[in-house]
């Protein structure tokens, strides 16, 4: 075998300052395990408490967004009496850019959902802390949105924990899907 492909992948990640990367089917167990490793690495880095909690908080929301909403999934059609087994695919990286930690997440979304998601992201990105606080309180009271399993609060939590405006992008993949990326710096 030739180890160069894997080494090149590692080199690409390191060049971008990435200290953790996970690409694959996401589960809550992956969240627990990688989350624990992030806490340990930031403790070793001597990051302050608020930075550590904020990086962790952004990571949790990014992971749960993929676990709940990624349009790329593997599912087993279940018998009537057993729950549907379903796991969703995405990629999450945690890296350093200068003095900041950067958490990026990517997953497929259906084209039909892009405009609604983009609209929500623009709205949240452009809000100041006070506006974000007001919207958050309003959303916490509101019933969960259609097609949403988490009251749509995850992106607001990411924006609130980030030290500068969130960044995002949608890249066309094919007729059905776009690749959605969300980046937050702490």
């Amino acid at each position: 075998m030739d180890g160069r492909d894997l080494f090149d992948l590692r080199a690409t990640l390191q060049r971008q300052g990435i200290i953790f990367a996970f690409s694959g089917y996401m589960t809550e167990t992956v969240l627990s395990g990688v989350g624990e490793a992030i806490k340990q690495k930031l403790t070793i880095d001597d990051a302050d408490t608020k930075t550590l909690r904020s990086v962790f908080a952004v990571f949790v929301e990014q992971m749960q967004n993929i676990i709940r909403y990624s349009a790329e999934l593997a599912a087993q059609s279940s018998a009537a009496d057993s729950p549907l087994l379903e796991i969703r695919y995405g990629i999450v990286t945690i890296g350093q850019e200068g003095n900041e930690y950067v958490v990026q997440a990517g997953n497929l979304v259906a084209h039909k959902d892009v405009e609604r998601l983009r609209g929500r992201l623009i709205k949240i990105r452009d809000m100041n802390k006070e506006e974000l606080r007001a919207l958050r309180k309003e959303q916490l009271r509101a019933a969960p949105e259609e097609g949403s399993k988490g009251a749509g609060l995850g992106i607001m939590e990411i924006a609130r924990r980030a030290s500068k405006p969130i960044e995002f992008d949608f890249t066309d993949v094919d007729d059905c899907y776009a690749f959605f990326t969300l980046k937050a710096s702490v």
Partner: protein
Amino acid sequence: MMWKFEIPATARTPAVTFDFAENHLKLTGESYPEDVTEFYKPVFEALDTYLAKLGKGSCRFDIELIYLNSSSAKAIMMLMDKLDAAAANGASVEVFWYYDREDDTMQELGEEFGEDLANAKFHLEKMAE
């Protein structure tokens, strides 16, 4: 009625310590359960049963969380609503929100929850070091 309702803490769920005999209820630790609804359902049931019988009595609820995720925030809001409703019905309810002095995000979150309490008394306190 039971006198205590307790769930030990895990890495992702808080310790629940409801001492009904002492009218002292507590949530301590971190809250980002795999399934928020499943975790909080029995907690709410125990709280509902207790509050229904509290009448004009008094109770203290301590929330000492170092981290909660966005779906847990919804559960905490529901919990606050229950406490406020009991206070509206004549109970004397005091809510203490303890935050880590090194994480002002949790202080702000406490302020936001406190603003919504119309009848229960709210206290914002730093955690002991």
